[in-house]
């Protein structure tokens, strides 16, 4: 029963992924696309933690952490690029 609820949670998060990627495609400005990318990343981190639970592998949590770090740097790089500082 508990597993089923986590599958439902993963499904709901996947709906969020669909919406955020829709904004990423449609987003008129660069900042919109970066915001959608940031949202996608945070949702993906949670999905990775769920996959780590289903696959019973602890290493996926470190993968999620590294993914979060890289995404954070990516957003900061885009922000600096937009300001012309890069």
């Amino acid at each position, binding site marked *: 029963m508990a597993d089923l609820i986590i599958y439902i949670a993963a499904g709901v998060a996947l709906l969020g992924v669909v919406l*955020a990627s829709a*904004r990423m495609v449609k987003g008129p400005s660069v900042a919109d696309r970066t915001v959608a990318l*940031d949202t996608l990343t945070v949702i993906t*981190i949670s999905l990775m*933690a769920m996959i780590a639970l289903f696959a019973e592998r602890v290493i996926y949590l470190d993968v999620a952490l590294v993914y979060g770090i890289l995404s954070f740097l990516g957003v*900061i790089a885009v922000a600096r690029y*937009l300001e012309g500082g890069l």
Partner: protein
Amino acid sequence: MEWYRLAGSILSLLGAMFLFLGALGVWRMPDVYNRMQTGTKSTTLGSILTLFGLGVYHPQWMGQMLILMLFIAVTNPISSHALARAAHHIGVPLTKKSVVDELVEEEPPQESMAEMEEV
């Protein structure tokens, strides 16, 4: 054995709902700055709840989940703040419904700090 698994899964379901609401906000909000707000605030809460729920579900991993939560709680606001500044700097327009743009007056750096205090 069963109760903490159930509690953990319900917590992560709640977190997943906030993640979905965050993404819904990113889709529906009128301009960049509102989207950034929902895309950061509710997804941060959603991922913290989800990770905490998974930590309760699988107590051995609680330490790593806490590290992940701390990381998300620290970096998400910083990245969205940098993005908001950059978006405003390159002149991304606010939505027509917005009332006042606080940041516009402070754009010219040569204005001395004293004048800004009087405003």
